[in-house]
C-alpha cells in the first residue's frame, strides 16, 4: 500500500475530564471517500477540528503527506488543503456570495489578485449551482444554499482532503439528492473526502469505507454495508437494550 495522504496516530483530545476523541488511529488514502459515522457527541466534529488545527491534539500525532502537522493553526491547515465545511455554517454574512468563495480562493487557494480570485469563485459557484445568487449577501441565503456556499468555499481552497461535516443535516430529501450528486462529482475530481453523515442512504451510496466513532474511540472500520449490520455499531447507535430488541425483531 502506498503512503497514506492523512494519518492519525493515537490522537486524543480532552476537554477537562472528557475525552472527546480517544486514541484514534486512522488513515486516508489519496482519492478515497471515507465515511465517519457515530451517534451525536461521539467526537466526529472534534476529530475534524483536530485535523484542521482548530483544536490541538492533547496527545498523538497528525501527519499529512508524511509531515507532522499536529501543531498547525487553522489557516495553515487551509493552505495545505485540509479543508472542511462546518456543521454550523460559517459564512462572512455581509459579503456577497461571490466574495465568500473568492476569500477561499484567495487565501486557501493562494490566488493573489482579487480579480482572479473572483473569476475562480464564479466557476465554483457554477459547479455547486449557486451562480444565480452570486451577488446576494451570504446572510440572505436559505440553509440549503448556505451549505452549498460552504462547499463552494472549500472547493475554492483547492482541497486535498475535504471533510464534510453533516452537509445534509437540516435539508429536505430533494435537497439531499442534490447534495449527494455534488459529493459524487467532487469525488470524481479525485478529491479525498471524509464524510460525516447520519443518513445511511448517503453513506452507503458514496463511501468506500466507513469508520465508526463512539465515545471518542474508533469501534469499527470496514465496508459500508458490513458496518451498518455490525453489532457494535448498532449497539452504539441504539443502546444495548434497543439493540437487543432490534436483533430479535430482525430475527437475527
Amino acid at each position, binding site marked *: 500500500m502506498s503512503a497514506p495522504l492523512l494519518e492519525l496516530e493515537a490522537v486524543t483530545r480532552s476537554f477537562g475530564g472528557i475525552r472527546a476523541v480517544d486514541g484514534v488511529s486512522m488513515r486516508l488514502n489519496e482519492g478515497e471517500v471515507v465515511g465517519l459515522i457515530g451517534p451525536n457527541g461521539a467526537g466526529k466534529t472534534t476529530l475534524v477540528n483536530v485535523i484542521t488545527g482548530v483544536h490541538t491534539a492533547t496527545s498523538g500525532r497528525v501527519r499529512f503527506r508524511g509531515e507532522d502537522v499536529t501543531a498547525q493553526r*487553522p*489557516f495553515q491547515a*487551509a493552505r495545505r488543503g485540509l479543508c472542511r465545511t462546518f456543521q454550523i455554517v460559517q459564512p*462572512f*454574512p*455581509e*459579503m456577497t456570495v461571490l466574495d465568500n468563495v473568492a476569500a477561499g480562493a*484567495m*487565501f*486557501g487557494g493562494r490566488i493573489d489578485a482579487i480579480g482572479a480570485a473572483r473569476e475562480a469563485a464564479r466557476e465554483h459557484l457554477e459547479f455547486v449551482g449557486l451562480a444565480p445568487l452570486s451577488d446576494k449577501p451570504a446572510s440572505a441565503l436559505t440553509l440549503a444554499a448556505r451549505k452549498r456556499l460552504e462547499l463552494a468555499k472549500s472547493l475554492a481552497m483547492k482541497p486535498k482532503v475535504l471533510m464534510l461535516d453533516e452537509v445534509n443535516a437540516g435539508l429536505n430529501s430533494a435537497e439531499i439528492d442534490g447534495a449527494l450528486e455534488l459529493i459524487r462529482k467532487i469525488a470524481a475530481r479525485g478529491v479525498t473526502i471524509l464524510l460525516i453523515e447520519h443518513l445511511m442512504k448517503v453513506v452507503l451510496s458514496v463511501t468506500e469505507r466507513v469508520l465508526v466513532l463512539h465515545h471518542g474511540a474508533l469501534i469499527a472500520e470496514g465496508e459500508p454495508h458490513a458496518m451498518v449490520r455490525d453489532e457494535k455499531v448498532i449497539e452504539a447507535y441504539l443502546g444495548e437494550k434497543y439493540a437487543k430488541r432490534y436483533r430479535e425483531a430482525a430475527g437475527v
Partner: protein
Amino acid sequence: MMSRLGLALFAGWVVILATTPLFAENYIVRTAIMIAMYSALALSWNIIGGFTGYPSFATVAFFGVGCYVGGIAQRAGVPMALAWAIATVAVGAMAAALGAIILRLKGHYFAIGSIAIVEVCRLVISSWRSVTGGGDGLNVPLLRWHPDAVAQFFLLVMIGIMLAAFVMNALVDRHRLGFGLKCIRQNEDAADMVGVDTTRYKIVGFTLSALLCGTVGAAYASWVGYIDPTDSFQILMTVKVPVMALMGGAGTVLGPALGAAAFVILEEIFWANFLEWNRAILGAIIVALIFFLPGGLLNISWRRAARRLRGRESAEAPA
C-alpha cells in the same frame, strides 16, 4: 470601492482646504489644519476599526508618542522632516509590538486594552522627566517664519499626511490585505479557517493604523512648539477619532474624511456658540449616531446616489 463622484468631491474638498489661506481668515485656516489632521487620524483608524472591526481607542497613544519622539528628536538637533520620519517609524514599531499582545483580545476587551495603552504611554511620558520634561512639558524648536507662512506650511503638511492616509486606505481596500481584514471583521474564526493568517493580518492592520498618527503627532509638535502629557494624550481625541470615522462611514475609503470634516466643523460652530455645552453636544452626537446612522453619512447618500445614478448596476457594498 469609491464612486467617481465621491473621488471628484474629495479632490475638490482637498483643493478648498489647501487654498483657504488665499481667501479666508486665520481662524478658518486653523480649522482647515485641524480638519486635515483629524482626517488623517480618522483614515488611519479606519484600517483597524473600520476594515478589521477592532474598536481601537489607541489613536491618541500613537499621536502622543509621535509628538514626543518628534519633539525630542528635534531638540536633539535632528532636522524637522527627519524627526517626523523617526516618529513615524518608532510609532509603527511600538504598534507592532503592542498589537501582538492586545490583538489577542476581542470586542470590549480589546477596546479596554487599547485604552490601557494610552494610559501606559501617558504615564511613561509623564514619569520619565529626564527625557520628556514630565508634567512641565517640552519646548520644540519653532519655525522662525511669518506666522501666516507657518500656518500655510503646516496646512500643506497635514493635507499631505491626510492624502497619504487616503492612499493607504485605497490601496488596502484593493489589496488582499483589505479583503482579509474584512473577512476578519465579519467572522474571525471563518477567516482563519479559510486560510487568512489572522494574527499577522491584524498586527499589520494595527501597525498601519498607527504609522501616520505618529507622523501627525510629530508635525503637530513642530507646529505648536510646546507639548505636555495632558495636551498630547487627550482622552477626548481618542474618542473623537472613532466617532468621526463612524459618522462618515467606517470601513469605507472616503467616510472617515467626510466624518472628520463634518465633526470638526460642527465642533467649531458649537464651540464658538455654546462653549458650556460643547461636551454635552459631543455626547448627543455619539448617541444620535449609534441610533440613527449605524452605517455613517456616506452609506445613506451612497445608497441614494447609487440608486439614482446607475439604476440597478450590481452594487458592491461600500464596506
